[in-house]
């Protein structure tokens, strides 16, 4: 089992003085304010906080789904702000996986095909992608349901397929936005365990955003956000690293 590489390893995700605001009607809402953070590989990092605190926005900036109004975001040492849309798509294809609260599975595809589909965009042939997809399904305990359609699956099963879909291409970065919010306790627990195992076994950087308190005790690191700032940075050793507005460990 891999242990967190900090503090000597370089971070896989970095945000420097990032700010983001949105126009809500006539009012401009500042969601993130000059926030800086480093996230490391091999850890399940949880960002928690109340609704509207900016945690999903931070995830979107670090994953390249959105760009900051000010500041810079790096992923795997690459400045996301300098990439074109096509380059960002290519970067995501090569390095990132996503799990969202909505499972977003295609109704017409079986579990196996759902996982196989993104692998086709990587240029893998059908045989190889089929094998990788089955392996990913096996890792989340869904190999026996490979032929099932979304309509035949429970919420927990759908989310496990969604994780397998993100996992199949063996990404270095895995982003999860409220992955357990739509699930019951038992299924939520399973998902947390899987995410944790992925971080530990694959050395993947797992960044999870959630307000689900059940996740806190399973995370290697918990960042608590409020009003667009990180109020607390805690790691599983048990001692808070810091309790400052911006948590920059480097």
């Amino acid at each position, binding site marked *: 089992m891999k242990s967190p590489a900090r503090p000597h390893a370089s971070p896989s995700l970095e945000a420097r003085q990032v700010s983001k605001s949105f126009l809500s009607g006539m009012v401009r809402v500042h969601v993130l304010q000059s926030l800086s953070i480093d996230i490391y590989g091999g850890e399940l990092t949880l960002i928690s906080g109340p609704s509207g605190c900016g945690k999903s926005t931070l995830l979107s900036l670090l994953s390249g789904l959105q760009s900051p109004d000010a500041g810079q975001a790096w992923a795997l040492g690459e400045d996301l702000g300098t990439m074109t849309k096509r380059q960002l*798509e290519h970067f995501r*294809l090569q390095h990132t996986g996503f799990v*969202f609260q909505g499972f977003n599975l295609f*109704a*017409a595809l079986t579990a196996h095909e759902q996982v196989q589909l*993104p692998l*086709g965009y990587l240029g893998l042939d059908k045989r190889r992608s089929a094998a990788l997809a089955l392996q990913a399904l096996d890792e989340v305990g869904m190999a026996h349901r490979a032929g099932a359609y979304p309509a035949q699956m429970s919420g927990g099963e759908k989310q496990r397929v969604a994780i397998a879909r993100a996992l199949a291409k063996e990404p270095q970065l895995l982003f999860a936005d409220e992955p357990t919010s739509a699930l019951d306790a038992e299924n939520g627990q399973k998902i947390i365990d899987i995410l944790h195992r992925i971080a530990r076994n694959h050395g993947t950087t797992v960044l999870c955003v959630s307000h689900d308190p059940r996740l806190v005790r399973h995370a290697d690191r918990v960042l608590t956000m409020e009003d667009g700032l990180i109020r607390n940075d805690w790691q599983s050793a048990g001692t808070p690293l810091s309790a400052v507005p911006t948590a920059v460990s480097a």
Partner: protein
Amino acid sequence: MIALARKTMVYEWRRFAPAVFAVGFSGVLLAVQAALVLGIFGSASIYVTASSADLWAGYPGTQSVNFGRDIGPDMEMYLRMDPDVVEVEPYLWVEGDWHGTTRTGGVPVFVSGIRTQEDAMMFSHLLPLSRRAQLREPNAVIVDRSDLDQLGTTVGGHAWINGHRVQVVAALTGLRALGGVNVLASQDTARRLQPSDSAGGTPYFVARLRNPSLAVAAQARLAAVPPGFGPLTVWTAETFAKRSRLYWIFDTGAGIAVLFMAAIVCLVGAVLTSQALMAVVASSAREYAMLNALGASLRALSKVVLEQACWIGGIGLLMGAAASALLLWVASRYDVPVSMTWTVAIGCAVLVMGLAVISGLFAVRGLQRAEPAMLLR
């Protein structure tokens, strides 16, 4: 690669059905309109297409068969002088006023004065030899079956053309005319029906060649009319038929109106199809956004939508073709003037597929809204 487009269409066929029907209906409307145009305006050239003549000689600048003007009788000799011409016959055209026995009003008719010999060229594709022989009776005429009611007569009944009594000896199908009623008569009968103030000339001479494939070369030779012969133009039968049809389609308001309607059909079809396809894309927006988040490019996702558009076009086309064939068969059974050629049918098919692809391109724009950030809470 997983066949996402096809699998989605098969699994969720109900969502795609409206788009398929929209394409199918557009195809039916286009095909039926085209068939009506061909059928209605094709009757402008029935005199040429129903005859076996290879060449037509008439007054220079004649735009359509019904606009013939008299040419000199010596033109027959001019045509016969060509080494490839084996037969020449005159074709008389008399415009008359028909009065039937059950109607008092006059009906404008076009009397075609034709030879009654068995090897005659005029209307040889339409007129069985037995019917042609009936025309040898003085004052015998043949009309289209669907015109009998309008003419106020029956087969075996009589009527008057330009005040001369004629007898309807038979009725055919496929003889309907634009702007009047076609009447077939022998040349002798036709001459008797000419108004007294008419010059009594012949508007056309038609010729048969040794071999129909020599038509273009013979026409080119005969086009250079030597001095001494009166004004004359020689057309191949194909050219003259096309000339007559195009005049009615493009130089009269009726043809343009029909073409305008066809354009409207295309536009409405494109709007309906693209709306249906956009609704399908919108309903899968989150799934497409998910794929985009995982790195599938917008270009790759656009291909999925365009592939679906092509499937919709293909299936709609097949349905439209089957429905059109059925409708046109029914129409022809009821003497509705419809006609279809392979060229026009393929043209309609290309338009329908183009319509589906353009709708797909419109629907692709819906993908722009499938931003991965929309998946975040």
